[in-house]
């Protein structure tokens, strides 16, 4: 046939399980134990409440700029819930809930967003990467980790997160291409929260979905309701299993929404309507999942409240710990640490300069 349509081999699917009102598509319901379901709920709620608390602190001037995650908890928790501790998690910068689930201490966020590098230290057992601010850049690190994992013949998988905006970056493209060429154990999770700061996804790409970008790499792509933690969980589970068993990478598009500002320095009223936000508010992943759990009988109202209280206590303790900790931190000379394994002579010289300057500054303060 000289002129004919070409079929693309890889599948492109859509998945949703729990709808906006918490109604379930029974046959698709994932097999999760009560404990797992409660853990999912608790992790989402912790992410939500901690985010709210950070916003308060920011508004009080007690921390600096940070990017709220409100509305995206299901996309994050549903996905990382499938990871083992030995797996790698490579976040962008709006994965607070997922980072917490992976074990990053709450107080570390407060240090970090208060301008202390010490907040970026991850626990020793952690294999994850710290947040990556340059949009899309981390996809390549994830591909490199996945390459290394397969070089070492482990069954570790790597899950990386990025936004809708990131799909326009060259690094996204190069990373997914590499992952497909080497059939790496990579799960690429796009949190399509509809906005890249003020740019809506319709201006980011001419495609109706982001998942179809998988076709450019010859890998499966799936679009899921990102506010449905069960759908995200199920899609990620498939992808993780495929990756772990040598089946190569997957692109998952979680359709979700950034309910708050881009960062606390942003004013979304400049570029989007209250109505749009309201509409998405109704699709909030947390009440929906709570309804499901209550309906299923996994939890009762009392337990939900209990979880809520626990979470608030955990947060409060972390805030107190962080504020204590910050009193000890901030020695300016520390800025010379950790650039190189061994400090070169030119830096030693500069460090003495700073030392002198600190002394002079102190004198100025005490005498001035």
């Amino acid at each position, binding site marked *: 046939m000289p002129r004919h349509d070409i079929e693309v081999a890889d599948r492109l699917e859509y998945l949703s399980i729990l709808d906006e009102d918490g109604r379930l598509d029974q046959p698709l319901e994932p097999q999760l134990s009560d404990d797992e379901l409660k853990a999912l709920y608790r992790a989402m709620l912790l992410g939500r409440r901690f985010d709210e608390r950070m916003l308060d602190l920011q508004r009080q001037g007690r921390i*600096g*700029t940070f990017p709220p995650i409100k509305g995206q908890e299901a996309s994050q928790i549903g996905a990382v819930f499938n990871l083992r501790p030995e797996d790698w998690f490579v976040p962008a910068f709006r994965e607070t809930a997922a980072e917490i689930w992976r074990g990053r201490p709450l107080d570390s966020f407060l240090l*970090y967003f*208060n*301008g*202390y*590098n010490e907040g970026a230290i991850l626990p020793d057992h952690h294999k994850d990467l710290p947040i990556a*601010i*340059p*949009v*899309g850049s981390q996809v390549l690190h994830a591909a490199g980790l996945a390459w290394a994992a397969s070089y070492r013949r482990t069954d570790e998988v790597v899950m990386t997160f990025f936004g809708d*905006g*990131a799909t*326009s*970056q*060259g690094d996204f493209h190069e990373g997914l291409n590499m992952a497909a060429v080497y059939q790496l154990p990579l799960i690429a999770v796009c949190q399509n929260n509809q906005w*890249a*700061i*003020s*740019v809506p996804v319709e*201006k*980011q*790409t001419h495609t109706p979905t982001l998942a179809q970008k998988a076709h450019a790499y010859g890998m499966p792509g799936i679009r899921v309701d990102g506010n449905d933690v069960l759908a995200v969980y199920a899609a990620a589970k498939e992808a993780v299993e495929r990756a772990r068993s040598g089946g190569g990478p997957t692109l998952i598009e979680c359709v979700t929404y950034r309910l708050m500002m881009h960062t606390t*320095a*942003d004013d979304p009223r*400049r*570029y989007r309507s209250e109505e749009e936000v309201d509409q998405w508010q109704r699709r909030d992943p947390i009440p929906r999942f709570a309804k499901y759990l209550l309906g299923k009988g996994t939890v009762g109202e009392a337990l939900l409240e209990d979880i809520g209280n626990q979470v608030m206590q955990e947060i409060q303790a972390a805030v107190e710990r962080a504020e204590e900790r910050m009193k000890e*931190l*901030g020695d*300016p000379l*520390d*800025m*010379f640490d950790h*650039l190189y394994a061994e400090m070169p002579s*030119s*830096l030693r010289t*500069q*460090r003495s*300069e*700073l030392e*002198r*300057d*600190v002394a*002079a*500054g102190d004198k*100025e303060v005490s005498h001035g």
Partner: protein
Amino acid sequence: MAKMTMVQAINLALQQEMTKDDRVVLLGEDIGRDGGVFRVTDGLIDRFGPQRVVDTPLAESAIVGMAIGMAVYGLHPVCEIQFSGFAYHTFHQLESHAARLRWRSQGRLSVPMVMRAPYGGGVRALEHHSESREAYWAHTPGLKTVIPSGPRNARALLAAAIRDPDPVIFYEAKGLYRAFREEVPEEEETLPIGRPQIVREGTDLTLIAYGAMVRPAMEAADLLQTEDGVETEVIDLLTLSPLDEALLLQSVTKTGRAVVIHEAPRSFGPGAEIVSRLMEGAFYHLEAPIARVTGYDLIIPLFSRERWYLPNARRIVDAARRTLSL
């Protein structure tokens, strides 16, 4: 004459150039409805429409690469890179094409574009949002690197940059955006690119700075006068590259002593070139080694320690005193 912040003054330059010349178009991330994350392009989309104030997908190499094509076509694109810390994505486009197309085509083509980007510290920002790496561009033949130090010269230099027939990197010290206001004339005003200015005259010592460092340099000059009776000359480079050293030589020939100041890391930084030019052109007039007060050779620390990284009047005065004591 209105009193304006640097943000407003840059906005004015864009507005006036766009009004006068429909070749001038803006492109960048969030520059439309949002008015840019620093509001530099505030209101321009209402005035000129989305055809001329173009919100782009999130892709810096594309912003600059497309601007190159637009400029070759005959437009005068002005790109905004949201933070200079994300300008590295555009390096290959700027070095390999913007800086070379005139040369490559032996004068047949040209790339009259501007890349604007906020740079430098002082606003308690996240990582990658406070760097000062203008030396990368300054070392790149074919580019011009312009760095204003306040509202009035920002406006005048940006207008000149937009009209310039060659690609201009226009770094805006974000610490200055709203730091102070200055009278900025409503009528058009430009300043020549490539021409430093004496912003304070003196006979004993020369301070050389640009961008956000001009203010602490001026402050230091005041302190040196009141506390030490030293008459300090302060030079504002305004254009980092191509660097015209004539005025610098003149000054140092007179004063015999100089301190160069920048936020950028010291080693292989902008100050090194200034020191070298002075060494080459005024060696026999130097009465003491030229000192550098700069950022350290570190990643600029997150904001809790940032003020200890950035040069300030105290550090400049200290260096000046040491220089004067030699």
